[in-house]
C-alpha cells in the first residue's frame, strides 16, 4: 500500500496536520507567527548540513532550528533590540548562510523548489515513520506541558505565582516548534510551514468559544486542508505545499461566514 507515492503523501500529510493543529493554536495565541518563520528559514541550513554530512534531514533540521531558537532566547535576554528585529536578523542570516552553503555543494543536485514549497514525490516510507513517531512524541509532550503552557499564555504572572513553572514550559514548547518544522519540511516546504500552523488555527478561532474546541477545529481544518490540497495537487500537477495552504485558505474564508452570522444573531 505504501508503494504508491500518493498514499504515502496522504498518510504523511494527515500525520502532520494532527500535530500542527494544536501547536498552531499556541502559535496564534502566543503571537509566534514570525518565530515560526524564523525557525523554518533556518531549516534550509539544516537541510544543507544534512546533505553535506549525509545525515537524516528531519534530524538535522530539528537540531539547527533548536540551536537558532536557543540563540534567539539568549539574544532576547542579553540585548536591547526589539523581538521582531532579532527574529528578522536570525531568519535572514540563517537563510543566507544556508544559500551560501548550497552554492559550495556543487556536487549535489538540489531541488530548490521542492525544498521551498514541498514535494509529495519526495516522501519515503522512512519519512512516514519519522512523521508518525515524531508527531506522536510531540503531541505527548504537548499534553504533558499543556497546563503550565496554557496558563502562562493566558497570564504569565498567575501561572508563575501559582507554581506552574511557565519558563520551563516555554522552553519545551520552543523545542516542539523546531520538531514540528523538522517533520513537515519535506511535505509543506520551508516557506509555507508557518501557514500550516497558523491558517487552520485562525479558521478554528472563528468557529470556537473555548480553547478545546479551537484545538479540535484546528486539527479538523488541517486534515481537510491536506486532503483537499493533495488531491488538487495530484489533479493539477501543482506543488503540494501551496496546494495545501490554498485549501486551508478556502476553509478560512468559509469560516468567516460563521462570524458574520454570529454578529447578525447578536444584533
Amino acid at each position, binding site marked *: 500500500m505504501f508503494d504508491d507515492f500518493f498514499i504515502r503523501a496522504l498518510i504523511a500529510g494527515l500525520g502532520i496536520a494532527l500535530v500542527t493543529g494544536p501547536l498552531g493554536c499556541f502559535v496564534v*495565541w502566543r503571537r509566534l507567527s514570525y518565530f515560526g518563520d524564523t525557525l523554518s528559514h533556518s531549516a534550509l541550513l539544516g537541510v544543507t548540513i544534512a546533505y553535506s554530512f549525509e545525515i537524516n534531514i528531519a534530524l538535522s533540521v530539528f537540531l539547527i532550528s533548536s540551536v537558532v531558537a536557543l540563540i534567539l532566547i539568549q539574544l532576547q535576554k542579553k540585548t536591547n533590540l526589539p523581538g521582531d528585529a532579532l527574529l528578522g536578523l536570525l531568519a535572514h542570516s540563517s537563510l543566507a548562510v544556508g544559500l551560501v552553503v548550497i552554492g559550495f555543494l556543487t556536487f549535489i543536485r538540489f531541488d530548490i523548489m521542492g525544498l521551498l514549497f514541498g514535494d509529495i514525490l519526495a516522501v519515503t516510507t522512512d519519512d512516514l515513520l519519522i512523521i508518525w513517531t515524531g508527531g506522536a512524541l510531540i503531541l505527548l509532550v504537548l499534553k504533558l506541558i499543556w497546563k503550565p503552557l496554557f496558563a502562562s*499564555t493566558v497570564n504569565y*504572572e498567575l*501561572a*508563575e*505565582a501559582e*507554581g506552574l513553572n511557565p519558563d520551563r514550559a516555554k522552553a519545551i514548547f520552543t523545542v516542539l516548534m523546531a520538531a514540528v518544522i523538522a517533520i513537515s519540511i519535506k511535505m509543506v516546504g520551508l516557506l509555507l510551514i508557518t501557514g500550516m500552523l497558523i491558517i487552520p488555527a485562525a479558521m478554528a478561532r472563528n468557529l470556537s468559544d*473555548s480553547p478545546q*474546541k479551537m484545538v479540535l477545529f484546528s486539527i479538523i481544518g488541517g486534515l481537510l486542508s491536506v486532503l483537499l490540497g493533495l488531491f488538487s495537487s495530484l489533479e493539477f500537477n501543482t506543488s503540494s505545499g501551496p496546494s495545501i495552504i490554498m485549501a486551508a485558505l478556502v476553509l478560512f474564508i468559509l469560516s468567516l461566514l460563521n462570524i458574520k452570522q454570529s454578529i447578525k444573531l447578536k444584533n
Partner: protein
Amino acid sequence: MSSENSTLVKLNNAGFKQNDKWLVEGVSLNVEKGKIVTLIGPNGSGKSTTAKIALGIYKNIEGSVEKYTNKVGYVPQKISIDWTLPLRVHDFMLLTENIKDEAIDEALKLTGVIHLKNKNLGNLSGGEFQRVLIARAISKKPELLVLDEPVQGVDYTGEIALYELIKRISDTLNCGILLISHDLHTVMTATDHVVCLNGHVCCSGTPMDVAKNNEYKTLFGEQASQILSVYEHKHDHVHSDKGEIKKN
C-alpha cells in the same frame, strides 16, 4: 509570634530593583495560617512589588523569601488577557488546577457570578471580571491567598460583601491572606497585621499601632488617622521631598 510551622510565607529584608531603581526595599513580613496581613501605602509605594516578591514572580531580589506552601491563589491588580484566546469563565476557573465542578459552582456562587459561568471572559464588565478573579483564587482552596486590590471596580454594596467573604474564607479555610487594599476602614477592622509601605516599611503592627503612627497620618491624612488614632508617638525619620529617608 507564633511557632514557625504556621508560617506560610516570610520576607526577610526583601527588596527589588528595576533599571537601577528600587521599587521597594527592606521589607520583612510574615503571613501565617488564618491571619490577614494588609499592605497599605500610596501609589508607587511598592505594594504590588512586595506581593510579587512574596509570590516568587520576581526572581533577582535582595534579601530572601521563604515560602512554605505551593497551594497559592493570586488575584493580581492588573491582568491583561489576550482576546485571541476563546476563553469562557468556566475554562478560566480551571486555569492552574483541575477543580471539581461543584467547587467551581460554589466559588462562583460565593462571589455572586454563577450566572456568568458559560460567558466569554471578554464580554464581562470590570466588576464582574473582578468577582470571577476572586472566585478562581478561592475555588482551589489555597493555603495562601494574595489579593492585590481585589474589589477594584466592584459596586459599593458588593465591595462590603466581598470583604466579608474574604474574612470568612480566612476563617473557614484557615488560610493566610496577604491583602493590598485602599479601603482603610476594612483594613482597620478585618486585619490582623498592617504593613504601611512607602518604598520601604514606614511602620507596621496591629491596625491600632499603625493608626497611631505619625508617618501613617502624613501618608493618609488626618481623616484616615481619625478612624482609630488615639495618641501620637515620635518617629525616628522623616522623608525629604525626593522621598529619601533622613534620620532625625
